[in-house]
């Protein structure tokens, strides 16, 4: 499990570099970079901080990943999780921070 950073979208704001619990993201030539993607825990802290959805979660092939990519768009107390799936479909799941888990 790791992340991909889309360089063309990254504005170099550095928000992700502040928040990674493993300090894995660094700014290099005004772009966020992950030097050791194999050290990523998959917690998605950086996805939630990125204001331009430049960072995506994916599942590594060694753990059976099929090539899907998931971004997060933040809108007040809503988190929109946007998944681009292997067959080309897009699925959006919205979670409201005011709603509790039911289980």
């Amino acid at each position, binding site marked *: *499990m*790791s992340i991909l950073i889309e360089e063309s979208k990254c504005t170099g704001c550095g928000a992700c570099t*502040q*928040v*990674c*619990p*493993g*300090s894995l993201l660094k700014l290099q030539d005004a772009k966020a970079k992950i030097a050791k*993607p*194999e*050290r*990523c*825990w*998959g*917690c*998605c*802290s950086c996805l939630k901080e990125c204001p331009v959805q430049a960072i995506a*979660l*994916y*599942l*590594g*092939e*060694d*753990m*059976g*990943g*099929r*090539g*899907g990519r*998931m971004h997060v768009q933040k809108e007040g107390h809503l*988190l929109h*999780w946007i*998944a681009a*799936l*292997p067959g080309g479909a897009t*699925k959006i*799941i919205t*979670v*409201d*921070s*005011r*709603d*509790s*888990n*039911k*289980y």
Partner: protein
Amino acid sequence: MNIQYLSTDFLILGGGAAGCWAALEFCKRSQGKALLLEKANIRRSGCLAAGVNALNAYIGPGHTPQDYADYAKNDAEGAVDEALLLSMAERLNGTVQKLESLGLTILKNPDGSYATRGWRNVKINGENIKPLLAGAVAQEPRITVLNQANAFDYIVQGDRVTGAFAIAVQSPVLYVVTAKAVLCATGGAAGLYQPNHPGFSRHKLWYPPFNTGAGYAMGVRAGAKMTGFAQRFVALRCKDTIAPTGTLAQGVGAKQINALGEVYEQKYGTATMQRVRGTVRENAENRGPCYLRTAGIPQEQDDELAKAYLNMAPGQTLRWLETAPPSVQNVEIDGTEPYITGGHTASGYAVAVDRATSLKGLFAAGDAAGGCPQKYVTGALAEAEIAAHAALQYMQDDPPQAPDATPVLQTLNAYFFYDTDTVDALEEEMQGVMDAYAGGISRQYTYTKEGLAVAESKIAAIAQKSKSCAAKDMQDLVYILELQERLVVCQAVIAALKEVCA
């Protein structure tokens, strides 16, 4: 590397849930200053980075703190300190109310009471639990947070811990921090054993891969009394994504079944470790793979589960989206590699009821503190409160003198001139040794006296090699220190397992 001298009243190592809570509690009870050292950034660091969707330590209506202590003692097959459990349990519900007042969303019944799952769990939306804690810390002017500062050794003067050494992760700075009292809240240790996926996804663990057992290693080196290192925690997880199973097992009532479709959990019992042992046994006796039986649940539960997992383990939701939802396909389960963590088992510092360690001036809380399992989030917060109160009582007026840091600086600087072993290679070697000879996944968690002797000598050799690892920047130096911390914890685990065999 430059030396920066800092002093404070209450030094807290680790800005996870326990560390943040201790700082807040300390400021509530005193006019003193607290300094929080965190190796990443407190906004999302620690076990709660991805979130959590239940508070698993709560005492529901009709139950008492003694019931909770009894439950934890029974689940751990007796290997606990009951007085510690009780002192924690008495504070659990108070911490839940305080979390709610910070803005945490908690599911309520129509009468306004908390909706519980069983009698010990409260259902929440905990995706933002860490930002809420960090926000509260930011509101308190007497707390100074030093992010990207990695503590690696205590300052010990006479028989008293008077501070800690730390290095900055991004800049060439050695911090020498003195304090009137010190709290260790650095969490437990992951990455000791070869993980489920040793290749690219090797950090897809249950426990945070960034929790290296720093506080345990610092305690061992300083001569603190430690406890329970033979109690390794193996988590039962969704295979591959290593996502939690409790939401499926307790939340939607999914049973553990083997490849033949038989519900096997009753055969072995449903205590935490029994659920894992049963799964290992079913696999060993050729009735695997094992699953949580979710196929056939109502489709609307798929949607709620997708959200629940996004709030704590987003990879599992992506897995369902890439393959099939739980209503269609059972969720395969597996045991993880072993971890050492005082929040789930009783491993950690041996502490008194006030969370004082055996070293004067040093207190421990959360996963760093031993003897008191089944803490989860709220138990860690309860311990942070107890430790903050005791630290306040302990503090004397005279602030300690800063020590001469030159020898420490020389040792650290030497790593920039070596050019031999790399951290990654040695870490892989260490994990392989622990797996094969100290009861890892590939040995179904079993070990022998003879195997442990092999582990002991091989780990000692790796520890020797780690002293000449090469660093090209401060981040590399942190990785070297982390490897050495893990090696110290491995040695403590091996020693404890040898005692079990004796």
